[in-house]
């Protein structure tokens, strides 16, 4: 069971503001709330994975803070930035497992214009394909000894880049063309209101999310 998409977005936006203004204690609180947020939706594996990463890095960062060498302090700075992004990733992870249909229906309810929704629909669909394509290209690059994993190829980074981008562009051009052709045969530009299988409604379960949002807001005062 997952929370109302609208509330999830509210959570994400609030969280993205908070992680940059709260202190370390506050940040830990935000991470714990994000952990509860995932847990209450049954995303147990994800929840534990992220919270362990968060506190692991936190311990490292505290350790580095006491280190006397300045090089490590720079490292610590990078670590702190990463640390601040983790609660955000946690909330986003919950949106990531939503079926795209539900996500789009939720955004529609938020009165997001149709043209943006359309772009989002195609983009969401396209990213996994793109990852797939890149994997295929990497494989064939490996077979020809052009792989990015081989350090010798980094002597000519531009050529390396070209060998990645040329096949990717060729494939993408064709896929985009096919995708949009198929979309237009399925009425994507039909006028009038589009409907969805998902009814976005506030349910009792969503009260949990409201409480979590309240809590996350309260972490500002920690």
């Amino acid at each position, binding site marked *: 069971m997952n929370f109302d998409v609208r509330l999830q977005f509210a959570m994400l936006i609030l969280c993205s503001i908070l992680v940059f203004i709260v202190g370390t204690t506050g940040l830990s609180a935000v991470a714990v709330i994000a952990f509860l947020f995932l847990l209450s939706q049954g995303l147990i594996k994800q929840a534990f994975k992220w919270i362990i990463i968060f506190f692991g890095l936190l311990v490292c960062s505290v350790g580095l803070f006491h280190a006397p060498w300045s090089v490590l302090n720079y490292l610590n700075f990078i670590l702190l930035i990463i640390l601040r992004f983790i609660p955000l990733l946690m909330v986003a992870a919950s949106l990531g497992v939503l079926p795209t249909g539900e996500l789009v229906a939720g955004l529609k309810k938020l009165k997001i214009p149709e043209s943006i929704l359309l772009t989002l629909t195609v983009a969401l669909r396209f990213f996994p394909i793109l990852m797939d394509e890149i994997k295929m290209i990497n494989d064939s690059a490996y077979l020809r000894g052009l792989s990015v994993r081989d350090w010798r190829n980094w002597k000519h980074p531009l050529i390396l880049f070209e060998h990645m981008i040329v096949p990717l562009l060729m494939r993408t051009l064709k896929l985009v063309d096919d995708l949009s052709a198929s979309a*237009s045969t399925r*009425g994507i*530009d*039909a006028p009038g209101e589009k409907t969805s299988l998902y009814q976005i409604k506030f349910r009792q379960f969503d009260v949990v999310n409201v409480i979590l949002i309240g809590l996350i807001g309260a972490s500002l005062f920690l």
Partner: protein
Amino acid sequence: MITLNHVSFGYQGQSKQLKEINLKIKEGECVVITGSSGCGKTTLTRVMNGLIPHFYEGELTGNVAIKDQDTRQWPLWKIGQTVGSVFQDPKSQFFTSIVRDELAFGMGNYGASLNEMSRRLSGVLENRSLRDLEYRSLMQLSSGQKQSVAVAAAEMVQPDIYIMDEPSANLDMKATEQMRRMLLQLKEQGKTIVIAEHRLYYLTDVADRIVYMEDGRIIDLFTPEQLIAFSDEKLAELGLRGPVLTHGRSGRAGICKESEQRLNIRNLSVQYRRAKQPALRDVNLNVAKGEVVALIGKNGAGKTTLARTICGLIGEKCGTIAFNAQSVPRKRRRQQCWFVMQDTVYQLFTDSVWNEIMLNHPVTAETTARAELLLKQLHLWAIKDRHPASLSGGQKQRLVLGVGLMQQTDLMILDEPTSGLDGKNLCRVIDQIKDLRARGCGILIITHDHELVAGACDRVVKLRDGQIILNKKTSDLKLATLVHEMTNY
């Protein structure tokens, strides 16, 4: 239902793809359009589902009418309510992440009510036995399941006409059989169906008429009975694939007698990280010099895993892989074998045929001479300055083969080299394989194509759940047995 009157069409800036097409398709009729690659089949389907002239620009003359209405006056989205389309590559026709969303996508675009949507959804899920897959991610489905979803998604809108462009191109024989049953069911419901296809055997009891095209024109019309009665010579002349599974090319004559081994695999096991079951278990396989081995089995049986392990793309858990009787560690394997992927676009990295073949080779008199000879043998010399992306499918495939030959590899692995090819090009690939064999390469072919196995392979190796369950000479197998092995896993 569909009437085409003196229809001609050329894509923008290109020569005419369709010339003077006249065709009347009645309600409830199933028409198959066939002909060699580039004959205009796909273009003709695009004219019928309105993509031409609404999506693909170009010059369209003549009249195209669907239900007596000119398609030019109909907006494309409205045509979509009457004409359902299914395309070749499932990858390029899905818009959502899970099966139920995908099925609802079309109806949602037309603003159907939630009640109506759920009612039809459960009907279609039941009818297409997709109930178990309702919440599954589309990315995880097999190609057969994906194509079932594509047909089901078209059904949701309840169109009267179905237009399909090579729906079986990516399917194995079992999934093709499923496709046949789906088509029969649609036909029973009185739907009008138009299919552009190379594979004809599964359509003989679905089709009412077969339209044969050549160079943008309709040359001939025949019934399935006439097609089945064609002699092998006539089929070869038309460049068609065999319409029946019971006879056709079979029993390869030249059986490999070489004893020199190109590839030896001993007790190979492979397990993916986080997988409970090993992907390959205790596989033993030999490929001799000049031997052609077909690797068959259903998707997920381990064919691709085996090929990828041989190339070194995946590491083995245990076992050895030896080339020319010498065990080779994973990192050096790619230098000894070459993998021709199903989609060769991924394997071309440079801006001309010549640069492609010379990539990774120092420019010396010896390499240039060898490259020139190879390109001439592969009939690519005349186009050596062209961009690889501008080549035809067959030319790309030959170029990728050439890249492998340039490396002087001992083993060639071909992944589905004949998917989506017509009879004429199938023969060309078979000739190409014979040529490879004459060079002394060992050849391993992953395939679902019974005509390729019967026409070019010395031995058939069948995998199930990561284990070899059949390893037989093709000449010992009757065509019917072969077909049976390839249809039943």
